């Protein structure tokens, strides 16, 4: 599959990928290496995995990381209660075989184990890996480099098909070098004007040209301001949906709606105060 194919495929499912990201996805698929995506919040890191899964028509398995995530929640766990019931039941009938207790039937598969036991290669999304503890990174290393999981009671389970692994990170914590070395790397930044316009058009083909240009212009200008939470692409799309839903065609002529829908874009009180009608008017004036 060539680079253009990837870009076109993603475009069909509504994701606009730039050249470098397409290259990263291409290499991730051909070399079978995990891909680490970093960048500010709201630039579409998680969406990459979803779009890739949709484009390949593959299953998306998602592991959301959080502080305190451990192996039993991410990889596998023995179904302890069921094992106990089985012991009781077999005791009642007389004779119990301990070997039967550690079989697939009593194994609870968590996302990582699930991902490598699929027949068709799925897309495995490990979201916000930097939120998990460092010990968890160590668990990941075996899986990401060899695509195998060792369960002491069962032995080593090798991947039936290599999942396409996408990791995302926000920079809450520095990731270990060992993990970085095993991954391909791509840094996603807020897109330039044309790309963002293309994203907006991909999601809302019916939007008017003038309004689309104004939305992108204002959002791009707002990102340069000193805000607590810089609006990402998802916020931009929400705002666009709100504006076009209200029947706005030209921002300059419907200031009230613009001001009222700013809640889609600015998510803290301080940011909201930083964009009074005068400021918005200036921004819109600049774009037009």
């Amino acid at each position, binding site marked *: 599959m060539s*680079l253009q194919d990837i870009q076109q495929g993603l475009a069909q499912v509504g994701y606009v990928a730039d*050249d*470098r990201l397409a*290259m*990263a996805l*291409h*290499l991730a698929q*051909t*070399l079978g290496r995990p891909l680490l995506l*970093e960048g500010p919040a709201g630039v579409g890191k998680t969406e990459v995995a979803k779009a890739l899964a949709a484009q390949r028509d593959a299953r998306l398995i998602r592991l959301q990381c959080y502080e*305190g995530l*451990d192996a039993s*929640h991410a990889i596998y766990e023995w179904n*302890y*209660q069921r094992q*106990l019931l089985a012991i*009781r039941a077999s005791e009642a009938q007389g004779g119990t075989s301990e070997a039967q207790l550690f079989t697939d039937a009593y194994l609870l598969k968590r996302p990582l184990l699930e991902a490598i036991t699929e027949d068709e290669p799925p897309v495995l999304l490990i979201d916000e890996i930097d939120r998990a503890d460092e010990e968890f990174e160590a668990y990941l290393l075996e899986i990401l480099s060899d695509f195998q999981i060792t369960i002491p009671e069962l032995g080593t389970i090798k991947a039936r098909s290599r999942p396409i692994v996408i990791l995302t990170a926000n*920079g809450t914590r520095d990731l270990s*070098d060992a993990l*970085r*070395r095993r991954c*391909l*790397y*791509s*840094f996603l930044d807020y897109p330039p004007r044309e790309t963002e316009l293309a994203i907006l058009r991909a999601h809302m083909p019916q939007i008017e040209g003038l309004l689309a240009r104004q939305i992108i212009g204002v959002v791009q200008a707002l990102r340069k301001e*000193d805000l*607590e939470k810089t609006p990402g692409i998802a916020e931009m799309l929400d705002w666009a949906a709100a504006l076009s839903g209200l029947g706005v065609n030209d921002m300059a002529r419907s200031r009230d709606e613009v001001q009222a829908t700013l809640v889609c874009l600015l998510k803290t009180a*301080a940011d909201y105060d*930083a964009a009074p009608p005068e400021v918005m008017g200036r921004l819109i004036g600049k774009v037009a």
Partner: protein
Amino acid sequence: MRVTRFPSRAAGLADRMSGFIAHLRMNGMRVGPAETADALAALTTVEATDAKQARQALCVLLAGDADDWRRFDELFDAFWFNAGKQRAETASTEHVRVQSAKPMIWQKQTGEAQETESDTDQVAAPDPGDGEAAGRDGKLIATRAANLSRRDLREVIDEEALKQAEKAAMILARAIRDRRSRRRKQALRGPALDMRRIQRACLARGGEPMDLYRRARPPRPMRIVALCDVSGSMTVYSRVFLAFLKGLIGSGTEADAYLFHTRLMRVTDALRDHDTLRAAGRLSLMAEGFGGGTDISGSLDSFLTGYGARALNGRTVVLILSDGYCSSDPQALGDVLARIRRKVRRIVWLNPLKGWRDYKPVAAAMQAAEPYLDAHLPANTLAALAALEPQFRKL
């Protein structure tokens, strides 16, 4: 015209690629022999004769973090198109005999650049390695950004430096934030099983340990109380230190900030103001007499009797940013530090003078204070501020 100068012994693509990897490594990227093989493998899966594709593929493969990602283009150009200087460190290597080899495969891409460059730039001779004027438009990778940050804080204060000071403070605060208790307490999720509760719950299940309870070590974050000297002798540092305080306050750690000269005032709320301009305005109102004399012991004493009762506890690190030039009795400073010491975990003195060569704590106040300090650290450069992190981890 631009030429790529490879060592004459470089035989083929593999050799040159390992040269490229070495070049990246010399410039601080963490790559090794394994990456050489990976890079060659990656090039087979793309159109390697297209410089743009090759560049993208190698960038995706070899960059490890956002820093590498941004620098990669320059490093790539430096090696393959011989733009800029190749080494970050001074050339301590042997003189390699080089040959002038045009990168025939990427001729198309270099074509545009050829016209703009004068013929005099065509250097077929070995790289002199003098670290000067090797690039034309600021592409000197050799010049270290650190040069600027190693100068004394009072010489250069710009927006960038203030941002860096803020960032350094955040890293410091983070270093002491993520502490956990030694004891385990019951928790929903945790690494250890709570055997007592499990056994107790067994009774309800006919003796089978059906429900598993867990224990974990709860977080016990350290607090920071920062006291910053803004007297006359410290004015040159005060802007950077204010930025540093702002970083501490904004780091998500429980932190408290105070300024003092002859009086003491609490500035935590002013610094918490997200609007930097307004924060500066509030500060300047508060800091009337900013840049006057110093009464360290008096200020600390009023802190201890006033805010200290609530602000200090056994999990507090007290940071004092001052040069130790004090108009009051040095003995009084020792006494008040001894009293603070009884209430807090650690006292750290950040001294801008300490970074100077041949610094001796000759100021009487510093001599009186030293026995009560857990650490007396330099804070005269941004680099020094940033380098405090490992020290803080140990506190």
